[in-house]
């Protein structure tokens, strides 16, 4: 009985952490009136990492800071800023890590080359097999 009461009590409990005194920011759960701008903001938000629920995008996360980041993205897009400028602004502060889109910096070159190398490697194996069969 006490266990059930405890479980019910826990269901009612509000998480203590990360709940501030303020309601969500204006654009956190609101779409921009301009559909084209909203689409741009949405595409960018899907590629930005939530700083609290790391592994989620800010489009998916319900963390307050993610809401504030969506607010920031939508306000800047509405003000005419390009998505790449906003991404750059965040990368300047949090590093490449904040963006899910792999960078084109030299450190990421092996990543871009990997599919090509694997394809050549696989092709060589297949070619070798076919040749052996024929002979």
């Amino acid at each position, binding site marked *: 009985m006490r266990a059930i009461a405890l479980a019910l009590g826990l269901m009612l409990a509000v998480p203590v*952490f990360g709940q*501030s*005194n303020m309601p969500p*920011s204006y654009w956190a759960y609101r779409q921009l009136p301009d559909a084209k701008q909203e689409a741009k903001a949405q595409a960018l938000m899907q590629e930005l990492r939530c700083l609290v629920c790391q592994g989620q995008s800010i489009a998916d996360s319900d963390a*307050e800071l993610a809401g*504030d980041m969506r607010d920031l993205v939508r306000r800047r897009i509405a003000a005419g800023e390009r998505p790449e400028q906003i991404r750059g602004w965040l990368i*300047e*502060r949090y*590093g490449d890590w904040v963006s899910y889109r792999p960078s084109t910096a030299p450190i990421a070159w092996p990543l871009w080359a990997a599919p090509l190398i694997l394809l050549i490697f696989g092709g060589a194996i297949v070619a070798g097999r076919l040749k052996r069969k024929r002979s």
Partner: protein
Amino acid sequence: MAEEGGGVSRAFRLLPIVLLVWVLLAFAWRLIQPPDPTVRSQLVNREVPQFVLQPVVAGIPGLTSADLGTGEPRLLNLFGSWCIPCIGEAPVLEELQQKGVKIDGIAIRDTASGVTAFLSRHGNPYARIGSDPNSNVQLALGSAGVPETFIVDGKGVIRRQYVGPIGPSDVPKIVAELAALR
């Protein structure tokens, strides 16, 4: 069936095993040494971004970036009256203030009544407190939570970031760091 290019072929056959061991070692490494989830600001050793924050409670002035970098190194503390670890940090900030350390605060997503109650209960070590209701300045600083503390030198350059609450053991370190920046 005779093997043709014996050596090369055998090495080829070992490749999947080598790859498997490599992948397993990678798993083991991450299990033994989990990645550090701390988000660190890239603005350390760079100038504080420009901002203007309104006061959050009557009687304590608001905070602008111009208030930092007035020739004396200061602490910039991001806190919230709703933040539990900030309560634990409050006496440590008080101790720093008593040692002559200048501390400015940014109240993240907070209300006047919340901050007033927090300060009256846990003490007020702040010279200024700016209100950041939408975490705008927090994001501009490259911070990802509360509490966080930045050491800002006399020229307004961020010198160090403390993620999470400052503990009593950090006090001598911070005092020495500030003295070195003077």
